């Protein structure tokens, strides 16, 4: 997870006081963090970009309501995750993998493995994908994930387990899954 250092804390405090430059610095520091969450949930670069924009605009408008500055990473993740899940619900997205031409250019060197993983993740339900992304990509603990998604810790644990078991199955070659090739 992105570490919250003293510099970030000062920026958050300054941004809460209305300092625009401090908020611009926060955007610079956290945009990739938010983008990764949104992209992993939505599996679409353009929509993930929209989520990043909307998340930071909402964050700026409600920054004064953030009491504990140290909670900023989970707070901004909560905003982004909820927006991303709302998009999933609103647009009734089909979770079949999108075509390569629609994808954001992947910066990863090992793009085959990356595309396999994205395709496998895309077949999970949005709820399972969200819990997996918050744990594995952003490194939140179960309590934080429960707070972000507004679900009990026990549900986080069972969803993570189910997501991992399903993902494991999806990553197997088709012949081992018992599916036609």
């Amino acid at each position, binding site marked *: 997870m992105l570490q919250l250092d003293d510099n970030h804390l000062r920026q958050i405090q300054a941004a809460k006081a*209305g*300092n*625009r*430059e401090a908020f*611009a610095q926060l*955007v*610079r520091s956290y*945009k*990739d963090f*938010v*983008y*990764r969450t949104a*992209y*992993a949930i939505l599996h679409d*670069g353009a929509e*993930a*970009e929209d989520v*990043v*924009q909307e998340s*930071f*605009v909402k964050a*700026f408008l409600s920054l004064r309501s953030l009491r504990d500055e140290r909670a900023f990473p989970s707070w901004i993740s909560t905003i982004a995750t909820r927006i991303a899940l709302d998009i999933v619900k609103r647009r009734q997205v089909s979770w079949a993998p999108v075509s390569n031409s629609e994808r*954001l250019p*992947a*910066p*990863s060197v090992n793009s085959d*493995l*990356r595309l396999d*993983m*994205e395709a496998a*993740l895309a077949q999970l339900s949005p709820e399972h994908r969200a819990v*997996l*992304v918050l*744990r*594995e*990509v952003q490194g939140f*603990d*179960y309590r934080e994930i429960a707070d972000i998604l507004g679900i009990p810790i026990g549900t986080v*644990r*069972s969803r*993570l*387990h189910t997501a*991992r*078991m399903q*993902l*494991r199955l999806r*990553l197997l070659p088709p012949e081992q899954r018992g599916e036609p090739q």
Partner: protein
Amino acid sequence: MTCEDMSEWISAYVDGELREAERVMVREHLHHCESCRELAKMFESLSARIESTFMDLSAPPAVEAAIMQQLGWGRQATQGLRLIWVVVCSAALMMALAVGGGLAMGVGGCWRLFRILSHMLRGANLLVIRTVFGQGWLGLAAMLLGMGMVVICVVAIGRVLRQPLDSRLSSP
């Protein structure tokens, strides 16, 4: 507890999310069960693989400017603000020139009028008036006032035009 029942516990064990007693129980089970050890390794490698899949992703560079634009702090908004300042300063400059010119003309006219009057009223004691207006102080004061306002306006316009766009973001 069967291996199937144990699976969810192992997932939480890999995440370090079990209480001490639960952790001991799972560790004991893993010690004796090879298939569950394999499952634990699979969970660990899956975590590493998911992390490496997404950790090198970064947001498109344009997203930052788009956020600033949505918040009304974008380049276009800043240019608009700059234009307003230039218009205001230019208007003040024109006003200064008009006031300065008007005062200079007015004082000059008054001076000529008094000279005419003093010729017409020869003998009248206009020494005080002539002393005050004859030195051209008011004309000088009007000119200095106009020049001062012009300098202030020119400096203000210069500052507005020289100020980098990004520094405007720091002003609340």
